[in-house]
C-alpha cells in the first residue's frame, strides 16, 4: 500500500536512497523508537519508517488503513545540506543563483509549471561553469549540524505518530503547546524600532511596530488550532535533539541551533515554493499561509529556549544562547533569506516577465512537458523504486 501511495504521489528517483545516508536514518529511527518504547512502556510504539528519494522532498506521516507510516525523503536531507552550505560557505555572488535556480526548477516541475521550470533550468546553466561552493562532507561539525536538523524533522513526525498512539502523550504535548501558544509576546517596540534602524536602515516608529505586533497576535490567535499539534511536535523534537546530544556528548547548544535552523531552512524552501506559484501570475514576494505558520512556529520555539534550559538543567547561559541564536539568524538572513527574497526572486521574476512571452492559459499547466523535463533531469522513471524499509 505504501509503495502504491509513493509511486503515485511522488516523482521518484530511479535509484534507491543512497546507502551512505541510510545509516544516518537508521540511527534516527532507532533513537526515536527507543524513546517511544521507554516512554510508552510498549513495544507497539514502533512505526514503520520508509526512506524514499523523490523530487517532492517531503517528510510526512501517512495514515493508511493498514496503519501509519513515517516517510522520510533523502532529497529533503540533501536540501538541508544545500541550505547549510549556503549558510556556511555561500561567499560568491553566484552561489545563490547557482543553487537556487536548480531548486526553483525542481519546485516548478512539481507545481506543473513548465515555462517556469525551463526558465530556471536555463538560468542554472548560466552559472554551471562557475566554481561550486565547498561541500560539507569534509567538515565534521557541519555534517553534524545537518544531521541534527534532519533529526529535528524526523523526530517532529515521530511526535505526531506518538500523539496518535498514546492519549497520555497527546495530552501532555497539547498542554505544553497551550502554554507555548499562550506565552506573552515580550518584544519591546522601542527596542525593535532601534534594531531595524541600526541593522537594516528601516525607519519604523514604536507605535507602528506595536500595531504590527497586535495584528500578528490576532493572526496567531486565529492560527492556534492549526498550530497546536505542530508546536507540540516541535517542542518534542527539541527534546529528542537534547537527549541525543546528551547521549553522544555533543554540546547541547547545537540542539537549539539545529532546531532554529531547521525551521528557517524549511521556511526558505517554502519561499521558493511560493515564488514558483507567484511568478508570472502576481507580485513575487515569497509569502504564503504556510510561510506565516512556519514563522510563528520558529518564534514560538525560540521563545521557550530559556525555559527548556531550566527544565533540562543545562549549563547554558540563556543570554549567551540568545546571542548565539541571534548571530545564526543574522547569518541566515545574510547568506540565505535576504538574498533569496530581496535579490534572487525579484531579479529572476523580472527576467522571466521580460524573456518569456505572455503566458497563455494552456501554458500554465502542462503535465506531460513537466514530466519529460523531470525524466531529462533523472526523476520519475516508470521503473523508479519507491522506498526502502529502514527496519528490514
Amino acid at each position, binding site marked *: 500500500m505504501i509503495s502504491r501511495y509513493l509511486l503515485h*504521489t511522488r516523482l521518484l528517483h530511479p535509484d534507491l536512497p543512497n546507502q551512505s545516508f541510510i545509516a544516518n536514518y537508521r540511527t534516527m529511527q532507532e533513537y526515536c523508537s527507543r524513546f517511544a518504547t521507554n516512554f510508552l512502556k510498549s513495544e507497539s510504539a514502533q512505526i514503520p519508517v520508509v526512506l524514499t528519494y523523490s523530487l517532492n522532498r517531503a517528510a510526512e506521516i501517512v495514515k493508511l488503513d493498514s496503519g501509519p507510516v513515517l516517510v522520510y525523503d533523502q532529497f529533503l536531507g540533501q536540501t538541508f545540506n544545500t541550505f547549510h552550505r549556503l549558510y556556511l560557505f555561500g561567499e560568491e555572488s553566484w552561489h545563490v543563483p547557482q543553487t537556487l535556480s536548480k531548486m526553483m526548477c525542481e519546485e516548478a516541475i512539481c507545481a506543473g509549471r513548465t515555462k517556469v521550470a525551463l526558465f530556471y533550468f536555463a538560468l542554472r546553466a548560466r552559472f554551471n561553469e562557475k566554481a561550486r561552493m565547498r561541500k560539507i562532507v569534509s567538515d565534521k561539525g557541519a555534517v553534524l549540524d545537518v544531521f541534527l536538523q534532519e533529526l529535528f524533522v524526523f523526530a*517532529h513526525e515521530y511526535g505526531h505518530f506518538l500523539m496518535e498512539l498514546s492519549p497520555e502523550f497527546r495530552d501532555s504535548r497539547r498542554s505544553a503547546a497551550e502554554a507555548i501558544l499562550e506565552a506573552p509576546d515580550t518584544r519591546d517596540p522601542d527596542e525593535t524600532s532601534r534594531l531595524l534602524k541600526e541593522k537594516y536602515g528601516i525607519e519604523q516608529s514604536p507605535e507602528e511596530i506595536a500595531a504590527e505586533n497586535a495584528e500578528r497576535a490576532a493572526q496567531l490567535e486565529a492560527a492556534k488550532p*492549526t*498550530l497546536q499539534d505542530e508546536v507540540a511536535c516541535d517542542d518534542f523534537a527539541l527534546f529528542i535533539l537534547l537527549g541525543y546530544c546528551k547521549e553522544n556528548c555533543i554540546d547541547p547548544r547545537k540542539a537549539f541551533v539545529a532546531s532554529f535552523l531547521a525551521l528557517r531552512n524549511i521556511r526558505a524552501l517554502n519561499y521558493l515554493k511560493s515564488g514558483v506559484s507567484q511568478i508570472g501570475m502576481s507580485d513575487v514576494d515569497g509569502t504564503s499561509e504556510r510561510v506565516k*505558520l512556519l514563522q510563528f512556529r520558529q518564534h514560538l520555539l525560540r521563545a521557550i529556549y530559556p525555559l527548556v534550559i531550566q527544565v533540562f538543567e543545562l549549563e547554558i547561559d540563556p543570554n549567551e544562547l540568545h546571542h548565539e541564536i541571534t548571530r545564526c539568524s543574522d547569518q541566515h538572513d545574510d547568506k540565505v533569506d535576504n538574498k533569496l527574497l530581496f535579490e534572487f526572486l525579484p531579479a529572476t521574476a523580472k527576467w522571466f516577465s521580460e524573456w518569456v512571452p505572455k503566458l497563455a492559459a494552456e501554458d500554465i*499547466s502542462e503535465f506531460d512537458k513537466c514530466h519529460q523535463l523531470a525524466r531529462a533531469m533523472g526523476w520519475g522513471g516508470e521503473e523508479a523504486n519507491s522506498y526502502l524499509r529502514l527496519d528490514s
Partner: protein
Amino acid sequence: MTTETTNAVQIELSVNDEEAIGRLEKLGKDYVLFAEPDHFEGDVGVLSALVTIATATIPVIGYIVTEKIKSKKHVRVKYKGIEISGERLSNIEAFLKSIESDRQE
C-alpha cells in the same frame, strides 16, 4: 523494484468535506486508497485519495473537482507527483481520459 499496472491520480481534499469524500468512498476500495498525510510544514486537516483512473471513476473525479473550484473549496490534484492546475484542472475529465490508457509496466 516495484511494478504497478494501474494508473492513479491523487486528489487532496479537506477532511471535513464529507460530501466529496462520500462520493469517493462509494467507488469502493478497489478504486480508492485513502490516506491522511501530515507534512512537516503543516497542512492540517487534509485527506488524500489515490483514485485509479478508470471509466467508473473519471466522471466522479470530474464532478468533485468542478464543484470544489466553483465553491472555492480546497482541492488539489496531482499526477505522478506533479500538480495539475489552471486550464488542465478545469478540464480534468478530458485530461484523465487522455491518460487513462497510460499504464505503468
